[in-house]
């Protein structure tokens, strides 16, 4: 459902990724140096001006990106997507966390930590 296409690999971030892939209720926030260009077909191009890395994201990924505002937990984000897409919640949950893990790995977002 959610794809970050042709993602070039930079950085490690394995601990963050591990955290995101678990069900821990963390919030994810977009990094300020990342420029987001929305295209007419609703896909999104994320460009990290510091690393000069561009990452294309599909329309579903764009919705995830837009909700990475620090105000939504991952669970809330998955709930919102589950209301939009005709897919199993477990599948959406897995895809969302995988997508966020990719964003974290490339330094496009930060994890704010547990809100518990």
């Amino acid at each position, binding site marked *: 459902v959610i794809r970050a*296409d*042709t993602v070039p690999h930079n950085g490690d971030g394995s601990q963050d990724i591990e955290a995101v892939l678990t069900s821990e209720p963390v919030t994810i926030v977009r990094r300020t140096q990342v420029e987001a*260009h929305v295209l007419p*077909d609703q896909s999104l191009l994320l*460009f990290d001006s510091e690393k000069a890395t*561009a990452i294309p994201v599909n329309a579903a990924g764009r919705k995830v990106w837009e909700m990475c505002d620090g105000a939504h937990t991952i669970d809330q984000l998955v709930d919102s997507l589950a209301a939009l897409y005709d897919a199993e919640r477990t599948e959406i949950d897995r895809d969302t966390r995988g997508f966020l893990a990719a964003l974290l790995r490339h330094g496009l977002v930060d994890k704010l930590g547990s809100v518990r």
Partner: protein
Amino acid sequence: LTNSVLSAESCRMAGQFTEDFFCVYSFSFSFVTNHADARDSFLRLYRRFVSSGTRGAAQAVVEHVADGFIWRFKEETVATSLLGSALLGLESALCEAIIRSQDRSIAVHAATLYSVQSAVMLTGSSGAGKSTLSFALSQRGLTVASDDVALVETETLSVHPIPRPFHLDEQSLLLLETASMQLPQLRIRPFFVAPFDVDERSIPRWQPELLIYIGALRAASPEVKRVSQSEMAAYLLSETAQGPVSDSETVRVLTKICSGASCFALVPGPFSQTVDLVADLILGRQTELTASRVREGEIATLE
């Protein structure tokens, strides 16, 4: 011959050199040679850019000497036994100079072709097959403006293809011959085939409506798949040279270019099948565009 650059005046006085002036996207240069085929080749390559003489223009020289050819441009002086090699070497240096002279354009590694009603850009890394495919598509009625690089103006988004001789190696020539494609009859070896040699039609100034990325992998049968505009923007970015324009502005320009286009990725297969597939995509798309314009026209009339 020990002079690094022959002055235009001395060339004229020698009575055997000619000098022609060109201005390619604001980059002015003169071409000086004492070989008729060399002059003819450059006049055909840069025919749209012939200008009157300009003071201070850079000078490019191809000189026929007893044991071969010498080309000179700026600080470079290269001797070679083949005229084709001299022309290709000098043209490559000129192309780089044209790109470096731009301060408000970005250089995209892409071929630019025109059908009757639309522009198409083929992008992909070196060796992906842009030139061979472009040449083959020229045999299917498309006009090739450049098989290699285009400048995109940051303010207007205008696309300016830089004409280059087709980059056809032995493998390319074999593929074209096997597919029964007609190569122009030229005396010069290695081949120096300008786009004008295969199609004399003028080049329109249209924005690309179709963008095709040629992948590096090959398959048993060719395949085209639609890709998102952002994916295409990322592909174009990976094929864009760094220059005076900032990375952020480059991304903005490329996303704008992709915004008005249908985007596809090509996995090439056997050559003839690949040409058929891409020609069908372009010409089918052209039919679709024509129908769409007619519908828009009807709606406009009704309103």
